[in-house]
Protein backbone atom coordinates (compact mmCIF):
# COMPACT_ATOMS: atom_id res chain seq x y z
CA UNK A 1 0.00 0.00 0.00
CA UNK A 2 1.35 3.41 -0.95
CA UNK A 3 1.64 5.88 1.91
CA UNK A 4 -0.75 8.79 1.52
CA UNK A 5 -0.66 12.18 3.23
CA UNK A 6 -3.24 11.79 6.01
CA UNK A 7 -4.48 15.36 5.87
CA UNK A 8 -3.77 16.11 2.23
CA UNK A 9 -5.29 18.83 0.14
CA UNK A 10 -8.92 18.04 -0.72
CA UNK A 11 -9.38 17.90 -4.51
CA UNK A 12 -13.07 16.94 -4.48
CA UNK A 13 -15.62 17.65 -1.81
CA UNK A 14 -19.13 16.21 -2.08
CA UNK A 15 -21.44 18.01 0.30
CA UNK A 16 -24.88 16.55 1.05
CA UNK A 17 -25.88 15.92 -2.54
CA UNK A 18 -29.29 14.46 -3.40
CA UNK A 19 -30.73 13.45 -6.73
CA UNK A 20 -34.22 12.18 -7.53
CA UNK A 21 -35.57 10.53 -10.67
CA UNK A 22 -39.36 10.80 -10.37
CA UNK A 23 -40.26 8.79 -7.27
CA UNK A 24 -36.82 7.21 -7.01
CA UNK A 25 -34.38 8.75 -4.55
CA UNK A 26 -31.20 7.94 -6.46
CA UNK A 27 -28.84 9.80 -4.11
CA UNK A 28 -29.59 11.01 -0.61
CA UNK A 29 -27.30 13.37 1.33
CA UNK A 30 -24.09 11.84 0.02
CA UNK A 31 -21.10 13.54 1.64
CA UNK A 32 -17.38 12.86 1.43
CA UNK A 33 -13.99 14.44 0.79
CA UNK A 34 -11.41 13.05 -1.59
CA UNK A 35 -7.82 14.04 -0.75
CA UNK A 36 -5.43 14.63 -3.61
CA UNK A 37 -3.52 11.52 -4.69
CA UNK A 38 -5.92 8.99 -3.20
CA UNK A 39 -7.73 6.13 -4.87
CA UNK A 40 -11.27 6.12 -3.51
CA UNK A 41 -13.44 3.08 -4.30
CA UNK A 42 -17.18 3.44 -4.68
CA UNK A 43 -19.19 0.25 -4.20
CA UNK A 44 -22.79 -0.81 -3.64
CA UNK A 45 -25.33 -3.35 -4.91
CA UNK A 46 -27.02 -2.86 -8.29
CA UNK A 47 -28.98 0.35 -8.40
CA UNK A 48 -27.18 1.82 -5.37
CA UNK A 49 -26.51 5.10 -7.21
CA UNK A 50 -22.84 4.77 -8.10
CA UNK A 51 -23.02 5.84 -11.73
CA UNK A 52 -25.59 8.50 -10.79
CA UNK A 53 -23.00 9.93 -8.41
CA UNK A 54 -20.46 10.07 -11.26
CA UNK A 55 -23.07 11.76 -13.43
CA UNK A 56 -23.75 14.29 -10.68
CA UNK A 57 -20.05 15.03 -10.20
CA UNK A 58 -19.25 15.60 -13.87
CA UNK A 59 -22.42 17.56 -14.59
CA UNK A 60 -24.49 15.10 -16.62
CA UNK A 61 -27.27 15.07 -13.99
CA UNK A 62 -26.78 18.01 -11.63
CA UNK A 63 -27.97 17.23 -8.09
CA UNK A 64 -31.12 18.89 -6.74
CA UNK A 65 -29.51 19.55 -3.40
CA UNK A 66 -26.00 19.88 -2.09
CA UNK A 67 -22.74 21.18 -3.44
CA UNK A 68 -19.81 19.77 -5.37
CA UNK A 69 -16.47 21.49 -4.87
CA UNK A 70 -13.68 20.56 -7.27
CA UNK A 71 -10.25 22.19 -6.97
CA UNK A 72 -11.74 24.80 -4.62
CA UNK A 73 -14.38 25.79 -7.17
CA UNK A 74 -18.09 25.20 -6.71
CA UNK A 75 -19.00 23.27 -9.86
CA UNK A 76 -22.58 22.37 -8.86
CA UNK A 77 -24.80 22.70 -11.93
CA UNK A 78 -21.89 23.18 -14.35
CA UNK A 79 -22.07 21.64 -17.80
CA UNK A 80 -19.93 18.50 -18.34
CA UNK A 81 -17.60 20.28 -20.80
CA UNK A 82 -16.92 23.03 -18.26
CA UNK A 83 -16.16 20.46 -15.57
CA UNK A 84 -13.81 18.74 -18.05
CA UNK A 85 -12.03 22.07 -18.67
CA UNK A 86 -11.34 22.30 -14.97
CA UNK A 87 -9.42 19.01 -15.11
CA UNK A 88 -11.90 16.20 -14.44
CA UNK A 89 -12.10 13.26 -16.83
CA UNK A 90 -14.12 10.07 -16.72
CA UNK A 91 -14.48 6.74 -18.42
CA UNK A 92 -17.84 5.11 -19.14
CA UNK A 93 -19.13 1.70 -18.20
CA UNK A 94 -20.28 1.08 -21.77
CA UNK A 95 -17.43 2.23 -23.98
CA UNK A 96 -18.44 4.07 -27.14
CA UNK A 97 -15.36 5.01 -29.14
CA UNK A 98 -15.68 6.93 -32.40
CA UNK A 99 -15.53 3.70 -34.38
CA UNK A 100 -14.62 5.14 -37.78
CA UNK A 101 -11.74 7.20 -36.42
CA UNK A 102 -8.37 5.63 -35.70
CA UNK A 103 -7.25 4.81 -32.19
CA UNK A 104 -4.87 7.77 -32.29
CA UNK A 105 -7.59 10.17 -33.46
CA UNK A 106 -9.90 9.03 -30.67
CA UNK A 107 -7.25 9.83 -28.09
CA UNK A 108 -6.45 13.16 -29.80
CA UNK A 109 -10.12 14.08 -29.37
CA UNK A 110 -9.69 13.40 -25.66
CA UNK A 111 -6.56 15.58 -25.57
CA UNK A 112 -8.53 18.53 -26.94
CA UNK A 113 -11.04 18.59 -24.08
CA UNK A 114 -8.90 19.03 -20.99
CA UNK A 115 -7.90 22.02 -18.88
CA UNK A 116 -5.17 23.08 -21.28
CA UNK A 117 -5.82 24.44 -24.76
CA UNK A 118 -4.01 22.23 -27.26
CA UNK A 119 -3.18 22.54 -30.90
CA UNK A 120 -3.78 19.45 -33.03
CA UNK A 121 -0.03 18.88 -33.20
CA UNK A 122 0.25 18.94 -29.40
CA UNK A 123 -2.80 16.69 -29.13
CA UNK A 124 -1.12 14.19 -31.45
CA UNK A 125 2.01 14.19 -29.29
CA UNK A 126 0.05 13.63 -26.09
CA UNK A 127 -2.09 10.94 -27.71
CA UNK A 128 1.06 9.09 -28.75
CA UNK A 129 2.46 9.23 -25.19
CA UNK A 130 -0.78 8.10 -23.61
CA UNK A 131 -1.20 5.24 -26.08
CA UNK A 132 2.32 4.06 -25.27
CA UNK A 133 1.44 4.22 -21.55
CA UNK A 134 -1.69 2.04 -21.94
CA UNK A 135 0.20 -0.22 -24.37
CA UNK A 136 -1.99 0.44 -27.35
CA UNK A 137 0.64 2.24 -29.46
CA UNK A 138 0.93 -0.71 -31.86
CA UNK A 139 -2.73 -0.25 -32.81
CA UNK A 140 -2.65 3.56 -33.18
CA UNK A 141 -3.57 3.39 -36.86
CA UNK A 142 -6.41 0.86 -36.53
CA UNK A 143 -10.04 1.96 -36.67
CA UNK A 144 -11.30 2.07 -33.07
CA UNK A 145 -14.20 -0.20 -34.03
CA UNK A 146 -11.77 -3.02 -34.80
CA UNK A 147 -10.40 -3.30 -31.24
CA UNK A 148 -11.35 -6.16 -28.91
CA UNK A 149 -13.01 -5.59 -25.52
CA UNK A 150 -9.80 -5.28 -23.50
CA UNK A 151 -8.29 -2.90 -26.05
CA UNK A 152 -11.45 -0.77 -26.13
CA UNK A 153 -11.27 -0.47 -22.34
CA UNK A 154 -7.67 0.74 -22.67
CA UNK A 155 -8.68 3.18 -25.40
CA UNK A 156 -11.44 4.56 -23.15
CA UNK A 157 -8.85 5.07 -20.43
CA UNK A 158 -6.38 6.64 -22.87
CA UNK A 159 -9.02 9.09 -24.08
CA UNK A 160 -9.67 10.24 -20.52
CA UNK A 161 -5.95 10.42 -19.65
CA UNK A 162 -5.18 12.47 -22.76
CA UNK A 163 -7.11 15.35 -21.19
CA UNK A 164 -4.35 15.37 -18.51
CA UNK A 165 -6.93 15.37 -15.69
CA UNK A 166 -6.29 16.14 -12.02
CA UNK A 167 -9.16 13.81 -11.10
CA UNK A 168 -10.15 10.69 -13.00
CA UNK A 169 -13.48 8.90 -12.55
CA UNK A 170 -13.26 5.25 -13.58
CA UNK A 171 -16.57 3.44 -14.16
CA UNK A 172 -16.06 -0.33 -14.33
CA UNK A 173 -12.85 -0.41 -16.33
CA UNK A 174 -12.42 -4.09 -15.40
CA UNK A 175 -15.83 -5.31 -16.60
CA UNK A 176 -15.51 -7.89 -19.34
CA UNK A 177 -11.79 -8.45 -18.83
CA UNK A 178 -10.27 -11.86 -18.14
CA UNK A 179 -8.24 -12.41 -14.94
CA UNK A 180 -4.89 -11.67 -16.60
CA UNK A 181 -6.22 -8.48 -18.19
CA UNK A 182 -7.68 -7.46 -14.82
CA UNK A 183 -4.25 -7.75 -13.16
CA UNK A 184 -2.67 -5.71 -15.95
CA UNK A 185 -5.35 -3.02 -15.70
CA UNK A 186 -4.86 -2.78 -11.91
CA UNK A 187 -1.19 -2.08 -12.55
CA UNK A 188 -2.16 0.65 -15.02
CA UNK A 189 -4.50 2.24 -12.44
CA UNK A 190 -1.71 2.24 -9.86
CA UNK A 191 0.68 3.87 -12.33
CA UNK A 192 -1.88 6.57 -13.07
CA UNK A 193 -2.00 7.40 -9.38
CA UNK A 194 1.80 7.46 -9.23
CA UNK A 195 1.66 10.21 -11.86
CA UNK A 196 -0.22 12.26 -9.27
CA UNK A 197 -3.74 11.80 -10.60
CA UNK A 198 -6.48 11.34 -8.00
CA UNK A 199 -8.89 8.51 -8.76
CA UNK A 200 -12.52 7.78 -7.90
CA UNK A 201 -13.34 4.26 -9.04
CA UNK A 202 -16.53 2.18 -9.38
CA UNK A 203 -15.88 -1.52 -9.78
CA UNK A 204 -17.79 -4.76 -9.44
CA UNK A 205 -14.68 -6.93 -9.46
CA UNK A 206 -14.45 -6.62 -5.70
CA UNK A 207 -11.12 -8.24 -4.92
CA UNK A 208 -9.54 -5.87 -7.44
CA UNK A 209 -11.28 -2.81 -6.06
CA UNK A 210 -10.39 -3.69 -2.48
CA UNK A 211 -6.75 -4.20 -3.48
CA UNK A 212 -6.38 -0.94 -5.34
CA UNK A 213 -8.41 1.46 -3.14
CA UNK A 214 -7.02 3.43 -0.21
CA UNK A 215 -10.51 4.06 1.07
CA UNK A 216 -13.97 2.81 0.13
CA UNK A 217 -17.42 4.40 0.23
CA UNK A 218 -20.52 2.19 0.16
CA UNK A 219 -23.85 3.27 -1.29
CA UNK A 220 -27.12 1.36 -0.92
CA UNK A 221 -30.38 2.68 -2.36
CA UNK A 222 -28.73 6.08 -2.78
CA UNK A 223 -27.61 6.32 0.83
CA UNK A 224 -24.04 6.32 2.01
CA UNK A 225 -24.02 3.41 4.47
CA UNK A 226 -20.31 3.07 5.19
CA UNK A 227 -16.89 4.58 4.65
CA UNK A 228 -13.48 3.33 5.63
CA UNK A 229 -10.49 1.23 4.67
CA UNK A 230 -11.25 -1.79 2.48
CA UNK A 231 -10.93 -4.11 5.51
CA UNK A 232 -13.26 -1.98 7.65
CA UNK A 233 -15.89 -1.84 4.94
CA UNK A 234 -15.71 -5.57 4.11
CA UNK A 235 -16.42 -6.40 7.76
CA UNK A 236 -19.08 -3.77 8.38
CA UNK A 237 -22.39 -5.54 9.28
CA UNK A 238 -24.48 -2.99 7.38
CA UNK A 239 -22.43 -3.51 4.24
CA UNK A 240 -22.64 -7.28 4.58
CA UNK A 241 -26.41 -7.02 4.93
CA UNK A 242 -26.66 -4.79 1.84
CA UNK A 243 -24.82 -7.42 -0.17
CA UNK A 244 -26.03 -10.69 1.34
CA UNK A 245 -29.53 -9.83 2.55
CA UNK A 246 -31.13 -9.47 5.94
CA UNK A 247 -30.15 -12.36 8.24
CA UNK A 248 -33.26 -11.72 10.41
CA UNK A 249 -35.59 -12.42 7.47
CA UNK A 250 -33.73 -15.65 6.78
CA UNK A 251 -34.03 -16.65 10.45
CA UNK A 252 -37.79 -16.01 10.36
CA UNK A 253 -38.00 -18.11 7.22
CA UNK A 254 -36.21 -21.00 8.93
CA UNK A 255 -38.29 -20.76 12.07
CA UNK A 256 -41.55 -20.85 10.12
CA UNK A 257 -41.40 -24.63 9.67
Amino acid at each position, binding site marked *: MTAQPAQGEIILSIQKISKRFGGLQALCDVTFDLPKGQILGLIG*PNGAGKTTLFNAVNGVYPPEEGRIIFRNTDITGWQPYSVARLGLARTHQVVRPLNELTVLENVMAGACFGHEQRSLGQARGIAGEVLAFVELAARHDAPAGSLN*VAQKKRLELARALAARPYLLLLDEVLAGLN*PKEIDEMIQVVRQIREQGITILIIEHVMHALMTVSDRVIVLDYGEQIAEGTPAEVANNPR*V*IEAYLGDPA*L*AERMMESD
Partner: protein
Amino acid sequence: MAFLEMTDLSSGYGELQILWGVSLALERGQLTALVGSNGAGKTTLLRTIMGLTRPWHGRITFDDRDVTRLAAHAKADRGLILVPEGRQLFTSMSVYENLEMGAFTRRAVNSLKRNLERVYDLFPRLKERSSQKAGTLSGGEQQMLAVARGLMAEPQILMFDELSLGLAPVLVMSLFQVLRRLKSEGLTMLLVEQNVQLALAVSDYAYVLSEGRIGIQGKAAAVRQMDQVRQAYLGM
Protein backbone atom coordinates in the same frame (compact mmCIF):
# COMPACT_ATOMS: atom_id res chain seq x y z
CA MET B 1 -26.32 -39.50 -11.82
CA ALA B 2 -27.74 -36.10 -11.01
CA PHE B 3 -31.02 -35.04 -12.64
CA LEU B 4 -29.32 -32.15 -14.38
CA GLU B 5 -25.59 -31.97 -14.69
CA MET B 6 -23.41 -29.28 -16.15
CA THR B 7 -19.76 -30.18 -16.73
CA ASP B 8 -16.88 -27.78 -17.40
CA LEU B 9 -19.17 -25.30 -19.10
CA SER B 10 -17.92 -22.09 -20.70
CA SER B 11 -20.04 -19.50 -22.42
CA GLY B 12 -20.45 -15.80 -23.06
CA TYR B 13 -21.52 -13.19 -25.58
CA GLY B 14 -19.54 -12.28 -28.69
CA GLU B 15 -15.92 -12.18 -27.63
CA LEU B 16 -16.82 -11.70 -23.98
CA GLN B 17 -16.40 -14.86 -21.93
CA ILE B 18 -18.67 -14.97 -18.85
CA LEU B 19 -18.54 -18.57 -17.60
CA TRP B 20 -15.19 -20.26 -17.17
CA GLY B 21 -15.50 -24.02 -16.78
CA VAL B 22 -18.51 -24.26 -14.49
CA SER B 23 -19.64 -27.65 -13.16
CA LEU B 24 -22.89 -27.95 -11.27
CA ALA B 25 -25.37 -30.71 -10.46
CA LEU B 26 -29.04 -30.61 -9.51
CA GLU B 27 -30.17 -33.65 -7.54
CA ARG B 28 -33.70 -34.93 -8.00
CA GLY B 29 -36.19 -33.42 -5.57
CA GLN B 30 -33.70 -30.93 -4.16
CA LEU B 31 -33.76 -27.17 -4.01
CA THR B 32 -30.37 -25.90 -5.16
CA ALA B 33 -29.32 -22.29 -4.73
CA LEU B 34 -26.95 -20.40 -6.99
CA VAL B 35 -25.77 -17.14 -5.52
CA GLY B 36 -23.08 -14.67 -6.48
CA SER B 37 -22.47 -10.95 -6.78
CA ASN B 38 -23.41 -8.69 -9.65
CA GLY B 39 -21.91 -9.72 -12.93
CA ALA B 40 -20.79 -13.11 -11.57
CA GLY B 41 -22.57 -14.87 -14.45
CA LYS B 42 -25.74 -16.21 -12.75
CA THR B 43 -28.19 -15.22 -15.48
CA THR B 44 -25.78 -16.37 -18.18
CA LEU B 45 -25.60 -19.74 -16.45
CA LEU B 46 -29.41 -20.01 -16.48
CA ARG B 47 -29.56 -18.90 -20.11
CA THR B 48 -26.95 -21.49 -21.02
CA ILE B 49 -28.83 -24.28 -19.21
CA MET B 50 -32.02 -23.21 -21.02
CA GLY B 51 -30.33 -23.02 -24.43
CA LEU B 52 -30.89 -19.27 -24.83
CA THR B 53 -27.13 -18.74 -24.86
CA ARG B 54 -24.94 -21.25 -26.66
CA PRO B 55 -22.32 -23.08 -24.64
CA TRP B 56 -18.78 -22.60 -26.01
CA HIS B 57 -17.46 -25.67 -24.31
CA GLY B 58 -18.62 -28.35 -21.89
CA ARG B 59 -21.64 -30.57 -21.53
CA ILE B 60 -25.14 -30.48 -20.07
CA THR B 61 -27.08 -33.65 -19.35
CA PHE B 62 -30.69 -33.75 -18.23
CA ASP B 63 -32.38 -36.96 -17.14
CA ASP B 64 -29.41 -38.97 -18.49
CA ARG B 65 -29.56 -37.39 -21.93
CA ASP B 66 -27.10 -34.99 -23.52
CA VAL B 67 -29.01 -31.72 -24.03
CA THR B 68 -25.98 -29.46 -24.57
CA ARG B 69 -27.06 -28.28 -28.02
CA LEU B 70 -30.81 -28.64 -27.62
CA ALA B 71 -32.88 -25.52 -28.42
CA ALA B 72 -34.75 -23.76 -25.61
CA HIS B 73 -38.22 -24.81 -26.81
CA ALA B 74 -37.14 -28.45 -26.96
CA LYS B 75 -35.80 -28.20 -23.43
CA ALA B 76 -39.08 -26.66 -22.26
CA ASP B 77 -40.89 -29.57 -23.89
CA ARG B 78 -38.84 -31.92 -21.76
CA GLY B 79 -39.75 -30.01 -18.62
CA LEU B 80 -36.86 -27.61 -18.14
CA ILE B 81 -38.63 -24.36 -17.25
CA LEU B 82 -37.33 -20.91 -16.33
CA VAL B 83 -39.15 -18.19 -14.37
CA PRO B 84 -37.23 -15.24 -15.80
CA GLU B 85 -35.95 -12.15 -14.03
CA GLY B 86 -38.41 -9.28 -14.23
CA ARG B 87 -41.31 -11.73 -14.73
CA GLN B 88 -41.77 -11.11 -18.48
CA LEU B 89 -45.54 -11.47 -18.28
CA PHE B 90 -47.96 -10.78 -21.09
CA THR B 91 -49.15 -7.63 -19.38
CA SER B 92 -52.14 -6.85 -21.58
CA MET B 93 -53.48 -10.39 -21.25
CA SER B 94 -55.52 -11.64 -18.31
CA VAL B 95 -54.13 -13.70 -15.45
CA TYR B 96 -55.92 -16.74 -16.83
CA GLU B 97 -54.55 -16.18 -20.34
CA ASN B 98 -51.02 -15.88 -18.97
CA LEU B 99 -51.48 -19.22 -17.22
CA GLU B 100 -52.81 -20.71 -20.43
CA MET B 101 -49.68 -19.46 -22.21
CA GLY B 102 -47.61 -21.29 -19.62
CA ALA B 103 -49.23 -24.57 -20.64
CA PHE B 104 -47.89 -24.37 -24.18
CA THR B 105 -45.60 -27.37 -23.97
CA ARG B 106 -46.64 -30.70 -25.42
CA ARG B 107 -46.29 -32.27 -22.02
CA ALA B 108 -48.62 -29.77 -20.33
CA VAL B 109 -51.27 -28.89 -22.86
CA ASN B 110 -53.54 -31.82 -22.02
CA SER B 111 -53.37 -31.36 -18.28
CA LEU B 112 -54.17 -27.65 -18.31
CA LYS B 113 -57.25 -28.00 -16.14
CA ARG B 114 -55.54 -30.05 -13.45
CA ASN B 115 -52.52 -27.74 -13.36
CA LEU B 116 -54.76 -24.70 -13.20
CA GLU B 117 -56.45 -26.06 -10.09
CA ARG B 118 -53.05 -26.73 -8.60
CA VAL B 119 -51.71 -23.18 -9.13
CA TYR B 120 -54.98 -21.60 -7.97
CA ASP B 121 -54.68 -23.70 -4.83
CA LEU B 122 -51.09 -22.48 -4.34
CA PHE B 123 -51.99 -18.87 -5.13
CA PRO B 124 -55.67 -18.22 -4.26
CA ARG B 125 -55.04 -14.56 -5.07
CA LEU B 126 -54.56 -15.41 -8.74
CA LYS B 127 -57.90 -17.23 -8.84
CA GLU B 128 -59.64 -14.14 -7.44
CA ARG B 129 -58.00 -12.06 -10.14
CA SER B 130 -58.13 -14.52 -13.01
CA SER B 131 -59.86 -12.14 -15.42
CA GLN B 132 -57.78 -9.10 -14.48
CA LYS B 133 -55.04 -7.89 -16.84
CA ALA B 134 -51.63 -9.07 -15.66
CA GLY B 135 -50.18 -5.57 -16.01
CA THR B 136 -52.58 -4.25 -13.37
CA LEU B 137 -51.42 -6.68 -10.66
CA SER B 138 -49.15 -5.57 -7.84
CA GLY B 139 -45.46 -6.47 -8.05
CA GLY B 140 -45.90 -9.38 -5.64
CA GLU B 141 -48.91 -10.74 -7.51
CA GLN B 142 -47.04 -10.45 -10.80
CA GLN B 143 -44.21 -12.51 -9.38
CA MET B 144 -46.76 -15.11 -8.17
CA LEU B 145 -48.18 -15.20 -11.68
CA ALA B 146 -44.73 -15.71 -13.18
CA VAL B 147 -44.14 -18.67 -10.85
CA ALA B 148 -47.63 -20.04 -11.55
CA ARG B 149 -47.10 -19.73 -15.30
CA GLY B 150 -43.88 -21.72 -14.91
CA LEU B 151 -45.77 -24.43 -13.02
CA MET B 152 -48.40 -24.61 -15.77
CA ALA B 153 -45.68 -25.99 -18.05
CA GLU B 154 -45.50 -29.01 -15.74
CA PRO B 155 -41.80 -28.63 -15.03
CA GLN B 156 -39.42 -31.43 -14.22
CA ILE B 157 -37.00 -28.75 -13.10
CA LEU B 158 -38.13 -25.23 -12.29
CA MET B 159 -35.53 -22.49 -12.28
CA PHE B 160 -35.98 -19.00 -10.81
CA ASP B 161 -33.99 -15.91 -11.74
CA GLU B 162 -34.08 -13.33 -8.92
CA LEU B 163 -37.37 -14.33 -7.33
CA SER B 164 -37.27 -11.80 -4.47
CA LEU B 165 -35.91 -8.80 -6.36
CA GLY B 166 -37.83 -5.62 -5.60
CA LEU B 167 -40.44 -7.28 -3.36
CA ALA B 168 -41.40 -6.30 0.19
CA PRO B 169 -40.27 -8.76 2.91
CA VAL B 170 -43.80 -10.04 3.61
CA LEU B 171 -44.30 -10.98 -0.05
CA VAL B 172 -40.87 -12.55 -0.20
CA MET B 173 -41.79 -14.70 2.79
CA SER B 174 -44.99 -15.94 1.22
CA LEU B 175 -43.29 -16.74 -2.13
CA PHE B 176 -40.58 -18.66 -0.35
CA GLN B 177 -43.21 -20.61 1.59
CA VAL B 178 -44.55 -21.72 -1.79
CA LEU B 179 -41.06 -22.88 -2.79
CA ARG B 180 -40.93 -25.02 0.32
CA ARG B 181 -44.29 -26.52 -0.46
CA LEU B 182 -43.16 -27.34 -4.01
CA LYS B 183 -40.07 -28.92 -2.55
CA SER B 184 -42.13 -31.09 -0.20
CA GLU B 185 -44.07 -32.22 -3.27
CA GLY B 186 -40.79 -33.39 -4.78
CA LEU B 187 -40.12 -30.73 -7.43
CA THR B 188 -36.48 -30.18 -8.42
CA MET B 189 -35.60 -26.48 -8.38
CA LEU B 190 -32.71 -24.12 -9.04
CA LEU B 191 -32.95 -20.79 -7.27
CA VAL B 192 -30.81 -17.90 -8.46
CA GLU B 193 -31.12 -15.24 -5.81
CA GLN B 194 -29.54 -11.93 -4.86
CA ASN B 195 -30.72 -12.40 -1.27
CA VAL B 196 -28.05 -14.87 -0.20
CA GLN B 197 -29.27 -15.23 3.37
CA LEU B 198 -32.73 -16.22 2.23
CA ALA B 199 -31.53 -18.53 -0.54
CA LEU B 200 -29.29 -20.40 1.89
CA ALA B 201 -32.11 -20.60 4.45
CA VAL B 202 -34.46 -22.50 2.12
CA SER B 203 -32.15 -24.56 -0.08
CA ASP B 204 -30.55 -28.00 0.34
CA TYR B 205 -27.36 -27.36 -1.58
CA ALA B 206 -25.67 -24.16 -2.69
CA TYR B 207 -23.15 -22.91 -5.20
CA VAL B 208 -21.42 -19.54 -5.01
CA LEU B 209 -20.45 -18.17 -8.40
CA SER B 210 -17.81 -15.47 -8.56
CA GLU B 211 -16.33 -13.97 -11.69
CA GLY B 212 -17.72 -16.79 -13.79
CA ARG B 213 -16.38 -19.63 -11.67
CA ILE B 214 -17.82 -21.77 -8.87
CA GLY B 215 -15.76 -20.73 -5.87
CA ILE B 216 -17.69 -22.38 -3.04
CA GLN B 217 -20.21 -25.19 -2.90
CA GLY B 218 -21.72 -27.40 -0.25
CA LYS B 219 -24.78 -28.17 1.82
CA ALA B 220 -26.62 -24.89 2.28
CA ALA B 221 -26.48 -25.16 6.07
CA ALA B 222 -22.67 -25.42 5.90
CA VAL B 223 -22.27 -22.66 3.31
CA ARG B 224 -24.32 -20.37 5.58
CA GLN B 225 -21.58 -20.60 8.19
CA MET B 226 -18.72 -19.86 5.80
CA ASP B 227 -16.99 -16.52 5.93
CA GLN B 228 -15.77 -17.18 2.38
CA VAL B 229 -19.25 -16.27 1.12
CA ARG B 230 -18.87 -12.77 2.51
CA GLN B 231 -15.37 -12.67 1.01
CA ALA B 232 -16.70 -13.74 -2.39
CA TYR B 233 -19.04 -10.76 -2.34
CA LEU B 234 -16.84 -8.18 -0.69
CA GLY B 235 -13.46 -9.16 -2.08
CA MET B 236 -11.64 -9.60 1.25
